[in-house]
């Protein structure tokens, strides 16, 4: 297959109208088979693709198309991929670059640092269960404040209560690290509403915690584990009708939140029977201090210790990671270690990066395995 940009190039001398027609005829990035053509139009000293695909140079240079003001770059893109990126432009006559969203691409992904443009591979589709479903009954959110001696502060916690919540029933509990971000950037509330409606998970209570200093509190911090197990859990059990069996209690988190989940479970083995660990920052060092910097030091100490003496801390662990993340190495190597403890472990990889939409897209598989719903038995 000849790419459209090559067809255009082959025509030789190109005028403004040719570029206008080319841009009008396609959506960008232009995905053709397993290739994606990124373009930018304007006067510039240079244009680069700034992406977060581990394994490729992080800035890929665009080429100017002949004498036109169209710049392009062709990237191999496996079909199921989702890649977040920005364009790094050095405007004509300047030396300093600026990062911008791709003006030709309407697809954006938001995260706590802002937004990125998103390129979808040929067969990637946003899962329909992440989108609002009119038929799904909506759960409610309420806010609690839990005084924590472990953390030395009062911690605000949002609590998701499923639709048709009844005090006479008992519910499984899931505690989500960075819960606010999961709500905002991973559509967690919609996902819960939909999966509960479809009976793929049971109606459940989800406590959404937020840390004011996550890089410290999530890095195997004893006060954080104490908060979860000895302060938050009793507070929730006092207020809501919750199941008490470990199989009906879970911790989840992404990145440092994954570390926080595993670390807390390790300090309180058996307290939380289900763990959902997404792109966990499981940095370790076979020798020396590790390569990720001082903020990771307590993580490295914890993961090294866990690797040295793996322990069965829960019953089931769902681990997911993006192939385009640098953490793929750590996560892949963690799986056999977790399995060796006798825990049931399921590991899933995706053609995606370290971002909230990757974590969103894995929620169905993870939650329905950790907390299977009654869909096989219930026909209402």
């Amino acid at each position, binding site marked *: 297959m000849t790419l459209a940009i090559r067809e255009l190039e082959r025509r030789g001398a190109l005028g403004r109208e040719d570029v206008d027609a080319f841009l009008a005829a396609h959506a960008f990035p232009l995905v053709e088979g397993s290739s994606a053509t990124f373009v930018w139009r304007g006067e510039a000293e240079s244009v680069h693709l700034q992406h977060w695909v581990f394994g490729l140079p992080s800035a890929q240079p665009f080429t100017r198309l002949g004498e036109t003001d169209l710049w392009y770059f062709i990237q191999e893109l496996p079909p199921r991929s989702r890649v977040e990126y920005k364009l790094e432009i050095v405007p004509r006559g300047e030396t300093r670059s600026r990062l911008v969203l791709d003006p030709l691409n309407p697809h954006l992904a938001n995260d706590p640092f802002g937004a990125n443009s998103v390129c979808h591979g040929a067969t990637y589709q946003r899962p329909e269960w992440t989108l609002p479903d009119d038929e799904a009954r909506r759960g409610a959110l309420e806010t609690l404040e839990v005084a924590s001696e472990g953390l030395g502060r009062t911690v605000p916690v949002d609590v998701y209560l499923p639709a048709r919540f009844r005090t006479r029933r008992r519910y499984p509990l899931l505690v989500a690290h960075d819960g606010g971000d999961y709500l905002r950037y991973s559509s967690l509330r919609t996902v819960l509403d939909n999966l509960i409606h479809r009976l793929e998970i049971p109606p459940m209570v989800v406590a959404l915690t937020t840390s004011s200093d996550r890089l410290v509190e999530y890095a195997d911090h004893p006060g954080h584990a104490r908060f979860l197990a000895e302060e938050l859990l009793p507070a929730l059990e006092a207020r809501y009708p919750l199941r008490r069996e470990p199989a009906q209690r879970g911790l989840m988190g992404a990145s440092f939140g994954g570390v926080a989940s595993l670390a807390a479970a390790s300090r309180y083995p058996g307290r939380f029977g289900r763990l959902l660990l997404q792109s966990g920052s499981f940095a370790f060092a076979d020798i020396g201090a590790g390569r990720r910097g001082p903020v990771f030091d307590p993580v490295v100490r914890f993961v090294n210790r866990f690797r040295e003496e793996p322990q069965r801390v829960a019953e089931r662990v769902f681990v997911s990671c993006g192939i385009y993340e640098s953490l793929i190495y750590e996560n892949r190597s963690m799986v056999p270690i977790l399995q060796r403890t006798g825990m049931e472990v399921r590991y899933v990889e995706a053609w995606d990066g370290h971002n909230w939409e990757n974590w969103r897209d894995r929620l169905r598989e993870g939650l329905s395995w950790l907390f*299977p719903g009654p869909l096989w*038995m*219930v026909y209402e």
Partner: protein
Amino acid sequence: MAPVVLLGPQRFTRTLGEAVRAAGIEGRIGVVSAGWQEREREDDELRDHLQGRTVNLLLYARGEEAFGADPELFAAHRERQDLLRRLQELYRQRLAFAKEAARALLGKGGDPALLEPERRHALESLRDLDEHHRRRLRQIRRDFDERWQPLSRPAVARHVEALGRTLGSCEAVGIAGGHVAVLLNRLRLFGLDRTLRGMPIFAWSGGAMVATDRLVLFHDSPPQGAGNAEVLEEGLGLCQGIVPLPHARRRLHLADPLRVALLARRFAPAAVVALDDGGRITWENFALRDARGARQLTAEGALVDLAEERA
């Protein structure tokens, strides 16, 4: 003979009231909502829909009360349920292979003279496995009933008597969906599988599944597992020769002729019927009397209007 009316899900398209009116029922209607479990009593919308003529039979609550009063029966019941679960797991393991073989042969191209006998035999193996499973389930139930005589035990008998009185004042019974195993177990526990015979029945969604003679669980794309349709139980047998599939639109890949054909051929000669919102099937004198909005899955992998197919 009193009609048995099977209806699609009622949450968005309420057709129950119309079906009751069409059957000329004007008196009280006993309601079974045990499939809703803890929410059994939350039947306000249903009562309003039937102009306050309902009386909830409270089978779920009665079951809880009876088991609480008779721990020996409860322990035996739990043991039997555990046995059934283990048997279901064994059946499921065998089913995965049998279904895969049948599906592979149905989808295979080539010389029909060579293939068709193999396809038929693969399907026969699948049907034979389903039948074997049904026989084992029946035997386990029979053994349990003979040994424990639940209907004669005081904790159950007093509810049976009370239910008899309540049903005596009812002109018809409505059976809601929900958890089909719980629903069926509660109906059987209080002998309603026999008591309901001869009464006009309106059963919707999971209730319709339970009302027939073979309860088939199904979902083509569950988030976990293979999604092989499986026989769970023999139903109440209030109508026979039909396998209703409520929510088929959402649960099944009805545009996939291979899947449709396999389901249809596996349970033939029973009619496998997609029973979505608005669907209604009326059964009378052991035969289909009327159907609307219900589509039968065909051996060729298509869906056709049930009424036309049976005309």
